[in-house]
């Protein structure tokens, strides 16, 4: 990755003050603590922000593509209207894996047939990323799939320096956010380069799959590799891997009248290609009737089918599915089994 030149630096104190100021105009979501969990959630004060990253259960895709979302409202007498909701939002402290996830989500929802519910939220959201200085967790493998650096998906990117952050500006929206809310000073210009040198040292020998670019081909050639059944036979078809994935975006749509049958709505909700009924049709046929087929489909979406479309691995290596899988199934291990690294 070519070095980015920061224009500004900001002290941590000024950054927190800026977020506080932004709270007047935006809902701010950041990494925060709730009971025994660390998660991305709406905060009321910048003091709630957790800076020391720990992997969260869900990715911040939930702010663009919520678990449940009403997309249509109607009445018994036939009035029908699209329901599109969005609030001015700041997503603060999003990490490179999830930023790459945003980029993929964006291409999926907006490249053709621009999804109005998704785009309304993107339009109103300022995304502020924070670069990762080190590998966050033993299950993370961002470095294997070329996702340890964010290639997009943010308006501003922060790089940790002594007493604060260097700021990379990616969009006009980001630059307007700085001028309205953040007190900054001019950067020397070499801050990001030194952050990246430090990061490279921390990541050490952890390098991308040797055959990263060739994964679609490898997966195509290995449709019937023994690994599918080895891993698939353990799969519980529980859908956990999909719920936690930053780049899974399948959904189901259902209609519901209110109990008085006078008003109704159409709701889309997260669905999971790993659960048994996902590919079943009305006549009863299920086109992916075993866990092995379903696992093959999901992993191929990440490294083959959709990788061709997005020109990058659609798995961003955040490791959430590995942590969530009780049966210990890992996309990384599957990729390695079919020769990603040999």
């Amino acid at each position, binding site marked *: 990755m070519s070095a980015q030149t920061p224009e500004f630096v900001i002290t941590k104190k000024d950054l927190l003050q800026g977020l506080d100021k932004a709270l007047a105009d935006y809902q701010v979501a950041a990494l925060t603590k709730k009971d025994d969990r660390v998660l991305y959630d709406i905060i009321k004060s910048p003091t709630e922000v957790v800076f020391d990253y720990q992997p969260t259960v869900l990715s911040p895709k939930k702010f663009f593509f919520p678990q449940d979302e009403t997309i249509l409202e109607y009445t018994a007498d036939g009035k029908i209207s699209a329901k599109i909701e969005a609030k001015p939002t700041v997503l603060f402290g999003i990490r490179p894996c999830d930023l790459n996830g945003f980029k993929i989500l964006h291409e999926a929802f907006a490249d053709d047939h621009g999804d*109005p519910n998704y785009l309304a939220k993107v339009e109103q959201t300022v995304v502020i990323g924070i670069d990762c200085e080190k590998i966050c967790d033993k299950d993370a493998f961002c470095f294997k799939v070329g996702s340890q650096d964010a290639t*997009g998906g*943010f308006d501003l990117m922060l790089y940790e320096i002594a007493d604060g952050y260097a700021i990379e500006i990616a969009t006009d929206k980001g630059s307007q956010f700085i001028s309205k809310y953040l007190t900054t000073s001019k950067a020397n210009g070499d801050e990001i380069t030194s952050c990246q040198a430090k990061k490279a040292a921390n990541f050490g020998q952890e390098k991308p799959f040797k055959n990263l670019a060739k994964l679609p081909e490898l997966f195509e050639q290995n449709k019937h590799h023994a690994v599918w059944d080895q891993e698939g036979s353990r799969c519980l078809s529980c859908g956990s891997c999909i719920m936690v994935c930053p780049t899974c975006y399948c959904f189901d749509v259902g*209609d*519901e009248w209110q109990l008085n049958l006078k008003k*109704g709505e*159409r709701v889309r909700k997260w669905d999971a290609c790993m659960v048994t009924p996902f590919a079943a049709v009305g*006549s009863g046929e299920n086109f992916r009737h075993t866990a092995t087929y379903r696992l093959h489909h999901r992993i191929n979406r990440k490294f083959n089918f959709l990788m*061709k479309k997005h020109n990058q691995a659609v798995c961003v290596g955040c490791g959430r599915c590995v942590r969530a899988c009780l049966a210990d199934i890992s996309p990384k291990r599957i990729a390695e089994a079919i020769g990603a690294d040999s």
Partner: protein
Amino acid sequence: MRTKLNLRESDPKLYLPERAKILKIKDFTENEKFFELALLDRPKLGHVPGQFLQVSVLGIGEAPISISSAPAEHNRFDMCVRAIGDVTKKLHTLNVGDIVYIRGPFGNGFAEKTLSTMLGKHLLFIVGGLGYAPLRSLINKVVPERDKYKKISVLYGCRTSKDRMYAHELDELSKIGGNVELLETVDKADENWTGSCGVITTLIPKIDFNPNETIAMVVGPPIMYKFVLKALLEKNMPKENIYIDLERRMKCGVGKCGHCQMEGIYVCQEGPVFNYAEVEKNEELL
């Protein structure tokens, strides 16, 4: 250069259906009904043969249903609905004058480019059961223009004679003569049936065709494809000359929700009509 979350164009009506009024309902079989509908807010549907609609009954849901009529310059169109899920069962309880909501047309059908490759060729339709509904949109387009084609053969197979859809249209089709022929078979004959009995592939040897000059259109229940494709390939039909039309669980219609994705292919976008040569390696499709 960074990839930005720059704003692409939003389609505010992507999930907003439009009104269509039921003009006519006919019972076809115990489980299938014919509907003629009229758009209320647009002059015409603007579809190509083989495309489908997402049809809503408010409060019940949305279901993908093939357009059964040929492209037309007016606001009317046909569908044939088998009562199988919540939406289709509810559609069967509706009456003339009732409003349903539709989105679409969606998908890849027999577009102008494909249709032009058919000119002067022998068109061979191989249809099982409810498959007549989507293919009727093409049959009813090409039959009135039959002089443009070398020959039109329609092979139609049903479980019993009671399951024949569009029975009176089939009778008319059989009377046209000239370069149009209809061959029918049923899996199980009853006292009202004097025609052939057997699976659809038994009709293929009865047709005289030059595989290189023939284009086959195959639509039917999932189990049918394997046998029909095998029979056609044994007759040396080039794979490029075979089109198949497939049913999957299309939910959003716009290539996002993932339900109809078979390996890398979104059936709602790249299908439901496929050229066999382009998808023969896709194990989930076939």
